[in-house]
Structures are given as structure tokens and as C-alpha cells.
């Protein structure tokens, strides 16, 4: 079953790339659509041209370089030292670009294992923490048993982080996979890495999962999830009423709440000005390595 799903999703992915390569207009992915809209709108307004728009985009790739927005905890020197340490670690191992929803394989040195290394494959369901505390959680179903492992991104015992499939999902966090049918989080350990052609934007997987019947770990119906298809089936009348009561439509307009959660542009551009060059270089060297690998062992799937 799981295999079948994997196959279909593979085929889907391949089809998507083909489509995108030919005519990108057809792409109806919501996030991308939003971005393009923003760009179109900003041009005529044109009041404050932001020179380093491209640099600011790296906030999606390296979100952990932005500090915690709480002003009580911020200190410019600490942040600077932390970023320097992060770059030092990044120069040692290749920490690739990945998102929530990407499938990763992580190899760590493990004193408990017999071979002293352990490899785990799974879908990234959560990324959190900033700076050296950044961590991500991988989830997989092994032998019909759901397993989740949390890793520190900058842990020096991590030997390798490999992105098997680079994609995004519809939601920021995929914690609902814990309550979804197991086939949605089943991935084989011997999965081959799929390499995106260069220059393509990160695809968004529009798959909508099916939840198991209740009880659930959280009240998913109140979270406005896009990646769940059958949430209404499991709800009773009282759940719907309570969902209505607990709705907070004004939070969308709470400008200061948004402000307190984000790092303003001025601060961000300082940060990226400091680290962007080094990150670019690391990325280039990584690409070089990747190209070498593809020459030596070309993937039959892609051919």
C-alpha cells in the first residue's frame, strides 16, 4: 500500500516538473501564486524599493538565522557570536535547504548502536527554535509503528543530512500526521534521493491527508488546516458550535501581534548582510559536490 502511494506520488512529482518546465503559468500552487501577486503589486506602489529583496528571501531557507523576536532576550553580540558558530558548523557538514514536508535522511554517530552510526529517514513535520537551538522532527512509520525523532540541526554528532525529496506541504506544521492514516507518513529507508533540476522553485505537494477517527491528539478542526481532507466527517454538532465560538477573526488584523512575532526588515537585512556571502559560498560548494555525484552515479529515475 505504502509502496503504491509512493509510486503514485513519484509519478505526480515527475509530472509536475514536466509541466513546470514547459509552462509555468499553469502552476496553481497557492503560495507561489501569492508571491507573484505581491511582486506585481509592489512594483506600481514602488514607494520604497527594497534593494535586497533577494537577500531577504533567504529567510525561508535559513529561518534559524533570525533571532527570537522577544526584545527581552535579544542581544546583538550574543546573536553575532551565535551566527558565527552556526557558520562554523555549517562549514563542517553540509546542512541542506529543506522545509517542513521534505523527506530527509539523517545519519548520526550513536554510541548506543552497534555500528556506532544510525540512519533515520522520515518526513520533517516540524522545525522550531532559532540559532544553535534549531531543531527539526522527522516522522516515519516503521513496521506499522509510528516513530518520531527530534534532532538538533547543529548537533556535532550529526554526520550527514540528506534531502531525499525537497518539497513543501500546505501547512506550516504537519503534526496532524500523527492522527492521519499511517500510509501518509510511511517512507522506505532505502529511498533514493530525487534531485530537482536547478533553478526550479521548491514544489508544493498539495496532498490532503485523511485523519483517523477521533480521539485526536489535538483539536485539529480549530486550526484551519489546509492539508486535511476529511475533518468534517468526524465532527459532531457541538464541535462545530465550539469551533465557531473559539474563532478569533480579529487576530488576522492584530498588527502588533504580527510585529511581535517577526524580525523587522531593517534588522533582517543587517543579519543577512553579515551571513549571506558565506552561506552563498557554502551553497556553491555544495552544488559543485552534488554535480560531481550526479556525474559519477547518475540516477536512473531521472533519466
Amino acid at each position, binding site marked *: 500500500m505504502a509502496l503504491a502511494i509512493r509510486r503514485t506520488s513519484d509519478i505526480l512529482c515527475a509530472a509536475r516538473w514536466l509541466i513546470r518546465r514547459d509552462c509555468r503559468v499553469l502552476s496553481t500552487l497557492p503560495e507561489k501564486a501569492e508571491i507573484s501577486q505581491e511582486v506585481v503589486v509592489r512594483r506600481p506602489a514602488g514607494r520604497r524599493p527594497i534593494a535586497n529583496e533577494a537577500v531577504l528571501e533567504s529567510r525561508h531557507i535559513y529561518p534559524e538565522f533570525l533571532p527570537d523576536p*522577544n526584545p527581552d532576550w535579544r542581544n546583538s553580540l550574543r546573536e553575532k557570536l551565535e551566527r558565527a558558530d552556526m557558520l562554523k558548523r555549517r562549514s563542517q557538514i553540509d546542512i541542506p535547504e529543506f522545509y517542513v514536508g521534505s523527506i530527509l535522511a539523517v545519519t548520526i554517530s550513536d554510541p548506543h548502536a552497534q555500528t556506532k552510526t544510525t540512519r533515520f529517514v522520515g518526513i520533517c513535520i516540524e522545525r522550531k527554535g532559532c540559532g544553535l537551538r534549531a531543531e527539526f522532527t522527522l516522522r516515519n512509520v516503521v513496521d506499522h509503528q509510528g516513530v518520531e525523532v527530534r534532532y538538533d540541526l547543529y548537533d556535532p554528532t550529526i554526520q550527514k543530512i540528506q534531502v531525499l525529496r525537497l518539497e513543501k506541504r500546505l501547512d506550516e506544521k504537519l503534526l496532524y500526521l500523527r492522527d492521519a492514516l499511517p500510509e501518509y507518513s510511511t517512507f522506505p529507508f532505502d529511498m533514493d534521493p530525487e534531485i530537482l533540476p536547478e533553478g526550479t522553485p521548491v514544489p508544493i505537494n498539495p496532498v490532503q491527508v485523511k485523519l483517523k477517527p477521533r480521539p485526536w491528539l489535538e483539536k485539529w478542526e480549530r486550526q484551519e488546516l489546509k492539508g486535511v481532507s476529511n475533518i468534517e466527517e468526524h465532527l459532531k454538532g457541538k464541535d462545530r458550535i465550539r469551533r465557531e465560538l473559539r474563532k478569533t477573526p480579529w487576530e488576522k488584523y492584530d498588527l*502588533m501581534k504580527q*510585529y511581535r*512575532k517577526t524580525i*523587522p526588515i531593517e534588522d533582517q537585512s543587517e543579519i543577512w548582510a553579515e551571513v549571506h556571502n558565506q552561506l552563498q559560498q557554502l551553497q556553491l560548494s555544495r552544488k559543485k559536490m552534488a554535480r560531481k555525484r550526479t556525474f559519477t552515479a547518475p540516477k536512473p529515475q531521472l533519466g
Partner: protein
Amino acid sequence: MNQAEVSKLVSKLRIKVPAEPRKLRSPKGPEGRIDKLRKTVTGLIKYERIELNHNRGDEARQYAERLISEAIRYGDCHKPTMDVANYWLLEKELIHKLFKVLVPRFENCNTAYTRMLNAPRPLPSRVDDKVVLELRGNPYPSLVNRQSNNRLLIQNVLLDAAKYDYRQSKYAEMAEKIGQREEAQALEKKSKEPTKESSNESKTPEI
């Protein structure tokens, strides 16, 4: 340590933002708080100068600053911004004012868009602190004392003379240093490094 949100980009406010929002007590809970602030922000944009309690004034000031900075950043063709303006401004003609009057006014402003001043309390009482909240560049007469520019006040006269004196001695010293250096150069033909040092030293004034 939580990760900062990356989906939105905001401009930095030029005022101090406390870590925690203030609670404005309302029977309707957080929604009531926002409603109160909406009224205040609408009033501020409409009248450009209002007097109110400190707590509410300080909160409303942050929201007004954010609203103006969003309007400046995205302009009036951006739908989400328009939506936000529509929500915050209860009187709809003010939306026009925001985009057509305030945005051009504050576009090249390097300071905060609003100003908050302490207002006098009529009697020493338990009433909350009052403030005056105003948009910069409003048409009303200024509230602050403009006396600071009077060059003829005695302290300014004295300091002015002291400044002249201080600068004179500084220049004299610099000239002397340069003269010394030239002499030294002429005499010894020193290498470049010591001259650099001496030029650094020449800037240090005598105190």
C-alpha cells in the same frame, strides 16, 4: 527560543515596543481590546491630535504607527493592506486620507510618525496619567516649548563662546602638531608609519 515568523515582512517601528502587549480591560475580552484600539486609531487619524489615558494612548500609538508603515510600504493597490486599513479605520473616508494624505506626508520621514506627550493632570488625584497623542506634521500649533532655540539665553551665550575658544585651541594644537611633524620629517625623513601615528595623535585635543 522561538523561531521568528518568516511569512510576513514588516518595517521597523521608530518607537519603543514593549515585549508584552498591554491588557486593556474589556468585558468582551481580546476582541474588545482591539475594538477599543480601533476607535482610538480612527480618532487619531481623523483629528490628528487627541488626549487620552496613557495606557490606551501608548497601545494605540503602536497600532497607528504600524498601520501607517504598512500603508507606506505596500501602497493602496495591495489588497491585504487595504483590508487592514478597512478594518482599522471605522470611518471609510479616512482610508482615502491614510493613503493619499498621510502616506505622502510620512514617506520620507526618518522619525516616528506620531508623537506622544504627557498632558497635565488637573489635580493630584488617582486618575490615570493623561497623554496627548498626535500625528507629526499636524496643522495645530506646537505643544512643546520652542525656547530651546534661543541663542541669546545666557547659558547659550556662554557655551557658544566656550565652543569658539575650544575649537581655536584645538586647531592651534593641530597646527602645532603638523608643524612639528613636518620638522621631524625634514630632519629625520621618517618612514610612513610613525607619521600616521602622529597624525592620529594630532587629532586628540588637549583637555
